[in-house]
């Protein structure tokens, strides 16, 4: 157990544990936000694991999750539009905090990687992670009103 796996354990236990509790209890707006944040927290955890196990190929897992996590949230945002319109989620503080955590993890892993093609790959994963997180959160709070067709 080195520092990276300890950080990954903490991120999983606290972050993803909180989202598992949040998706199982409470009103719909809390559950949807919890599902969104579960993928945005699992992706930095996978980056930390790839560094902790010293296997750069695990970054591909983080890349796929950074791409598909927001897609899953957008599926829910589109197909639960009527239920969410009455009671939209408004948790921008939490979203920005999770995005900042993701950015911190990406910077830490980039520093450990050193200047190489792997660094650019990590930066691409980080951009997808934060961009996807913010896009999915905006879609959940009803920001893309033009795509709604009653």
């Amino acid at each position: 157990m080195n520092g990276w796996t300890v950080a990954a354990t903490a991120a999983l236990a606290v972050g993803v544990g909180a989202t598992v509790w949040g998706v199982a209890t409470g009103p719909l707006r809390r559950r949807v936000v919890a599902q969104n944040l579960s993928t945005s927290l699992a992706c930095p955890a996978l980056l930390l694991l790839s560094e902790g196990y010293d296997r750069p190929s695990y970054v591909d897992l983080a890349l796929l999750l950074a791409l598909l996590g927001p897609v899953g949230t957008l599926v829910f945002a589109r197909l639960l539009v009527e239920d969410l319109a009455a009671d939209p989620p408004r948790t921008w503080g939490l979203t920005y905090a999770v995005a900042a955590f993701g950015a911190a993890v990406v910077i830490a892993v980039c520093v450990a990687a050193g200047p190489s093609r792997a660094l650019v790959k990590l930066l691409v994963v980080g951009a997808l992670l934060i961009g996807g997180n913010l896009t999915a959160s905006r879609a959940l709070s009803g920001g893309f009103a033009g795509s709604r067709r009653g």
Partner: protein
Amino acid sequence: MNRRTTLLGAAEILAWWAALALLWLVFISAVDALELVVGTSAALVGAFAAWGTRRAVSGW
């Protein structure tokens, strides 16, 4: 204006091809000849798909 539109289309496909090939180059772990061949062909196919998608959406 057929010649101008084909020239613009070819330039756009070339730009997409360069971007996707660069992305492939960043994502693979070891750069050798086979990877370069596969990467450029896949990027070419992807460039055509992206060009067609952009023309279908026509919102960019």
